[in-house]
């Protein structure tokens, strides 16, 4: 029983981690969902290993620990809320960026970096040529550009 739980949790976590590393945003969400299910399975496995469910117990029956079930229910609800939140974010990103590829999202960051670099270069050149009026850019053969 414990082995079955352990295997299920391991497979869920492994496939989740694999999907999480994909470039596609939807696959990433699917990966996180699988990992959240892995956490729930582990919570259940943490002591649901003996006895009957704790409802309608007959005298003499072994009763299983009801606490992990309460924990799993709470974790499911929280997982649902966070995944819904993540899906809403991904939806917004797809509407704004018109893509589900992480690479194209990262392009925004390099645009920003390029803007900063241009700004810095402008600043440097201003410092170099600003105060001295006589300076003129020359090409190698001496002609003014």
């Amino acid at each position, binding site marked *: 029983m414990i082995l079955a739980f352990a295997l299920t949790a391991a497979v869920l976590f492994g496939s989740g981690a694999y999907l999480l590393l994909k470039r596609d945003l939807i696959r990433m969400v699917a990966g996180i969902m699988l990992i959240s299910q892995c956490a729930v399975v582990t919570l259940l496995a*943490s002591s649901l290993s003996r006895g009957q469910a704790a409802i309608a117990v007959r005298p003499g029956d072994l009763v299983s620990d009801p606490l992990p079930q309460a*924990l799993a229910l709470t974790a499911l609800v929280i997982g649902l809320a966070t995944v819904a*939140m993540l899906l809403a974010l991904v939806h917004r990103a797809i509407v704004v960026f018109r893509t589900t590829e992480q690479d194209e999202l990262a392009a925004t960051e390099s645009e920003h970096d390029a803007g900063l670099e241009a700004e810095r270069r402008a600043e440097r050149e201003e410092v170099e040529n600003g105060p001295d009026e006589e300076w003129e850019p020359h090409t190698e053969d001496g002609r003014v550009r």
Partner: protein
Amino acid sequence: MLMSVALLVPWVSGVLLVAFDGRRRVVTWLAVVSLLVTLAVLGVLAVEVFTGGGSEVVTGGWAPGVGIVLRADALGVAFAWLSVLVLLAGAAHEAIGRVRSRTFPGLVVLLAAGLTGLFVTADVFTFYVFFELAMTASYALSAYGGKRRQLRAALVFTAVNLLGSFIFLLSVAGAYRVTGTLAMDQVAQRMLTVNPNAAILIAAGFFIAFSVKLGLFPFHFWLPTVYAGSRPAVAAILSGAVANIGAYGLLRFGAGIFPEQLRLTGVALAVLGAVSIVYGGVLAIGRGDTAEMLAYSAIGQVGYVLVALGVGGPVGLTAAVLYSVVNSLNKALLFLASGTRGPLVAAAFAIGALSVAGVPPTAGFVGKLELFRTGVVAGSVALVVLLVAGSVLSLVYLFQVYQRRFWREGPPPAGARSPLPQRLITAVLALLVLATGLWPEPLLALSGQAVDALLAGAPG
């Protein structure tokens, strides 16, 4: 009683405020007032805790051991008060300017509820519930602004931190499996007798979860994109309040529940912290963007907390608490100053920069002094050299940015001056940093008492 009020005020008002349009002035200022009330209640609670010991509430009127226990001790109350203070500064900063989304005020108040809850709970699973409440609010907050960069920041932040949260949940399941309880003090007691392999594995899970929140070296990859991409007020909230979860978690779980494992891995933690300091410091030099520089600086600064934790003992832990508090104030001040323009801001930024570098008479000096004491107590030359090198690096990168932003000739950069009250908030935070540096006794006493409370609860 006070503790329930401190939790219920932000919780109820946050839920109500989310339903209204936060772009309306009334709603925004109601959120600020609600945070002020929370801060005041937490202040009274803190005074009570510091003068008369901890206070305890068992939810639902159950017997302790059956019901969930909320326990306010010095460590938790100090972190809760500090986090709500940073949230208040961030919310007021946006309220004076212009709130750009309808959910912003409500989310900040809900974040306050989540943070207060997780700092006062004495139950591992309730910690997870409050943790998710706080994190979900901050996921939504990181998208605040709605531009492309903020959206990308929010996606990265949410994906990475959700993974961290589930690793935390897996560790909670593991802890319940081996100890059969969720109350922190009982978990700590029974952890002494479990199989050491299982215990170290569970401790590692908790460590990874909190390091992801804090942005420590091997888990820092998400941090620059998020802090640089989100709006300054949100970046201040994330680095000044939400990152406190990581520091508090490392202290509470590391020193409070897994002291044995902490002792075993102390050297490894100190090395990781050292790598964090050097990595953050070196990469922060030569960043064009103020926010990006501050993000790398944040990676370096949390390294100090980890080094102090790795050294351990009362001195090391006191330094860790003290430095977390100082760092959270510094980061809130610097991020807010980076989003403001006009007179007073340059002075505030300079005070923040000096504090990060650890120059007297700022709060950072007291933090660095305690860290040096830790290094001397540990008898490690390498540690002291590392601290000096880290401070020099931070002085270099901060004043490089200061020079570029405030000492520039010619017309001031694009964008009008910020309104005076917005600049005053930054100035007040700067004064707080200065005052803490000039009169450090309360902060020192607070850290000492927090560590006493922490060690009193720890087994062995």
